[in-house]
């Protein structure tokens, strides 16, 4: 359910770290809680993000929810497919990254939850 190739936050984001780069998305649990996602607002490329700080918003039909960055660094890319098809976040939450971040402190990821720990959290 919650793949072990990545780490998770208590705010329901995931990050896949590859060298000094992390890809960030939201979890299946988060998309279920939100319901149908209709709008995703992401930080501009080049902007800095900090671990645990809000860096964007995800809106469903009913609600607005903040996106918290699981790691610190600089945004190097954002997934343009999500801008036109926000429903991807519902249909494939673990396969749909939102941001690519150049990590400023790769060790930060150690503080995040494993798939097993996250599964326990949202049980």
């Amino acid at each position, binding site marked *: 359910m919650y793949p072990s190739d990545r780490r998770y936050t208590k705010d329901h984001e995931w990050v896949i770290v590859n060298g000094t780069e992390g890809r960030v998305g939201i979890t299946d649990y988060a998309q279920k809680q939100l*319901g*149908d996602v*209709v*709008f995703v607002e992401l930080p501009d490329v080049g902007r800095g993000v900090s671990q645990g700080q809000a860096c964007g918003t995800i*809106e*469903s*039909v*009913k609600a*607005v929810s903040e996106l918290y960055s699981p790691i610190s660094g600089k945004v190097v890319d954002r997934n343009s497919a999500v801008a036109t098809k926000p*429903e991807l976040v519902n249909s494939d939450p673990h396969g749909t990254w939102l941001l690519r971040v150049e990590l400023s402190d790769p060790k930060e990821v150690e503080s995040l939850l494993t798939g097993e720990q996250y599964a326990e959290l949202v049980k």
Partner: protein
Amino acid sequence: MDHAATTDQLRKTPLNAQHRKLGARMVPFGGWDMPVEYSGIVREHMSVRTNAGLFDVSHMGEIELAGRDALRAVQLISTNDAARLSVGQAQLSALTTPAGTFVDDLLVYRLAADHFLLVINAADIERKYRWIADHTRETGDVAVVNSSSRYALLALQGPAALSILQPLTGVDLQSIKYYWFAHGEVAGVRGMLSRTGYTGEDGFEVFIPPQAAERLWTTLLDAGREAGLVPVGLGARDTLRLEAGMRLSGQDFDETTTVLEAGLGFIIGKNKQEDFIGRTALEEQKRSGLTRKLVGFEMTGPGIARHGYVAFAGSGQGIVTSGTQTPHLKKAIGMAYLPIEFTPAGAEFEIDIRGRRTPARVVPLPFYKRPQLQPGV
């Protein structure tokens, strides 16, 4: 998600167990434990626009007024002209304060010459019942009864509603005109069928005894399955009514906004003879002119405006009362009170979306109007 402790204090409709069985996500709404969605707001919304949806709206309140002076009492407390109602006919109306602001909006059904059924919104039913009873105490021969617990209310809405319901009843549904109703049996349950709704689609609302609610609910869902009927929660009910330009009590209007400001002048009886609470204030406001009014808008910049967001219009301000991304029209729309000079269609203004001023434009209501039936097809 942390409602577990309070769920026990919430009121439950007779269909509560059915909603849970269907896997609905439940939320507190107006003191009731209600389904917000079953299969997803977008899917439910689209089902109502293209096929049909079934809603449990048993949380709505029913107040009955009966007696020789029942009409006088209804005329006193509501803005519309109930004298124009035939037996078997209903109208949208408002309960108003002396200032012409809203206690609630409501549907007035004329069950008999001297017997009316008022359907009011779910929040504070008891308070509104007392308000009606208190204000009609001096009105002669009329009994005011809160009969909310005697009714369950199901709404079957969508282009396929009539064809799903017709095989289950002997009542000729085609002969019931919009905002009229009839009594009869549906699936063996004695009830009242009203051609009304809160979605902008054709459909019926069925008043039945609570003990028959589960039976009718499951019978309807089974009967409509092939026609694409799905259960629909409050989430899609909200997006459907917003697309249809229908105001939500307590959100788009309340005790701080008048009937005229809410753009609902058409529910004030035009040639109504009798006085009603708030009449003087509303006539005075009409004479002196409005300073603000509720309008429909669509976002022309990125983002979704939500209830409570502040609007900037010239040197003045306004307030968003409803807003969402509509599933059917696929754009961000909403309603807002704006300074009167910004209320004509086409007026440009801005809405503060989490600190960013985002452009929006006034558009005529409703956002969505159902296609007319093609005769002979």
